């Protein structure tokens, strides 16, 4: 078993991903959720069992975040979450700080939601891919119509209510041609915190528009230009990837002990609407693979944390993911700034957890590090992104 030296192998719990419902009112072209048409929701007894399980495990040792995700959280009404937050508080006898978080498409935000968010100080992230001409290529209703107008109506409601939020935008191949337009969109709408996801190959989404040879070059050109605008602009604009990579540069001494959530067993715990539990990459929950079957390790109603630790499936996952991290450590110069990639991307792209480089890491780790290094220390190598 390979584990980062000096670090506990299990947890602590950092992120609890809860699928209150698998349903999403949208049908984005790049979505990885296989059951997004199911209108089921987590039952009250499962909610109660979930938080009982979490706080009875030995995983809660530090503050953590509950991300209500893997379906659009706001298709359920605030009353559902009021009961859920109450269940969480009831079982949290040691009063460990817990933050509840929604990543939402914002199309369903109304005043009742705003009141709830303010009362419970819910951490809000809005998914929007920039201006309408980019957003409406991929983020569609179930009838295939664009969603931008509805999303921005929700954003306006948040702002009218003084609710802080961040934005996550998915970068597709075409979006990489529009750093100026994306920047102007965020500034024009008073958006100050932006995270960029890349269009990934995951689950049922088997192809990415970024699976092309020139994607890293285009990605670097995009990020360099975007950060240049953000640095020089009149309004504050923080970019998650820049912050993350700066942190990695500061930490990346040769002997630094590094870790990632997705490669550490039970740093992330994912629970679906039926109470099924998984760990490592949250996207694994609900997927199937010929080698592993599914990635469910147990259920909050019937399986204790200790019994899951003894399961052969968990042992296989843990072994193969650790082997993949070790291969990254031995073969990739970026390891000390990355920590070994993301298991779900390795499985989707390489067919095995025990593997190394993926499109995801070429873009978000390798290329991003190169861009941030050039931001901090401009060097002649910067010119390779300019037209020859």
């Amino acid at each position, binding site marked *: 078993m390979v584990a*980062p030296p000096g*670090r506990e192998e299990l947890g602590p719990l950092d*992120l609890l991903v809860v699928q209150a419902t698998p349903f999403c009112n949208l049908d984005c072209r790049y979505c990885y959720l296989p059951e997004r048409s199911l209108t089921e929701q987590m039952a009250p007894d499962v909610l109660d069992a979930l938080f009982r399980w979490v706080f009875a495990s030995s995983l809660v040792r530090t*503050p953590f975040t509950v991300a209500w*995700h893997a379906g659009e959280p706001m298709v359920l009404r605030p009353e559902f979450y009021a009961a859920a937050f109450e269940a969480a508080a009831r079982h949290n006898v040691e009063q460990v*700080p817990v*933050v509840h*978080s929604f*990543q939402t498409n914002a199309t369903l935000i109304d005043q009742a939601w705003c009141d709830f968010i303010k009362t419970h100080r819910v*951490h809000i992230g809005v998914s929007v891919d920039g201006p309408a001409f980019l957003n409406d290529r991929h983020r569609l209703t179930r009838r295939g119509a664009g969603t931008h107008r509805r999303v921005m109506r929700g954003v306006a409601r948040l702002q009218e209510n003084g609710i*802080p939020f*961040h934005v*996550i935008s998915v970068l597709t191949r075409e979006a990489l041609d529009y750093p*100026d337009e994306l920047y102007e969109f965020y500034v024009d709408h008073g958006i100050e*915190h932006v*995270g960029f996801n890349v269009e990934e190959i995951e689950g049922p989404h088997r192809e990415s528009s970024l699976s092309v*040879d*020139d994607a*890293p070059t285009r990605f670097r050109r995009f990020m360099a*230009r975007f950060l*240049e605008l953000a*640095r*020089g*602009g009149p309004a*504050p*604009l923080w970019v*998650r990837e820049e*912050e*993350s990579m700066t*942190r*990695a*540069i*500061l*930490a990346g*001494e040769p002997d*630094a*002990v*590094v*870790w*990632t959530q*997705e490669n550490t067993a039970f740093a992330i715990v994912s629970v679906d609407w039926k109470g099924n539990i998984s760990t490592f*990459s*949250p996207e694994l929950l609900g997927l199937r693979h010929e080698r592993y079957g599914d990635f469910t390790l147990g259920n909050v109603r019937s399986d204790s944390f200790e019994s899951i630790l003894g399961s052969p499936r968990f042992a296989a996952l843990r072994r193969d993911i650790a082997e993949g991290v070790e291969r990254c450590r031995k073969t990739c110069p970026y390891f000390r700034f*990355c*920590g070994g990639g993301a298991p779900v991307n390795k499985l989707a792209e390489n067919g095995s957890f025990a593997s190394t480089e993926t499109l995801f890491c*070429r873009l978000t780790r*390798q290329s991003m*590090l*190169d861009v*941030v*290094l050039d*931001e*901090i*220390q401009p060097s*002649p190598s910067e*010119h*390779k992104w*300019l*037209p*020859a």
Partner: protein
Amino acid sequence: MDNEKSSRSRLKSTLLTLLQAGAGSLVLATTALMAPPAVTAATSSPDSLFKRAEGARAELVKVLSDAELTGEKPVRLAFWGNSWPNGWNNWGNFSRPSWPNSWPNWPNWRNS
């Protein structure tokens, strides 16, 4: 068209900086310009990557206070979903050090 103009402006600005730094730098820049764009990772060898990172770290350390440099150890390098580096939270629910969000758009280390 605007992008092209912007690239040209940037190129001009950077070349001016390099000229001020010395002829050797200019030769390097010209060579890089003539080479085809890199397809894979831009930094070609581990040694050059580590050297660049060391230089960048030194620049960061210059502009950060001790308090800002104190971070968690072991260091978490990647963040899933809507988790943000440094435990940043919209509502400030967790106490967090000021780094790195206290930097307004990184003005600190460029000489211009």
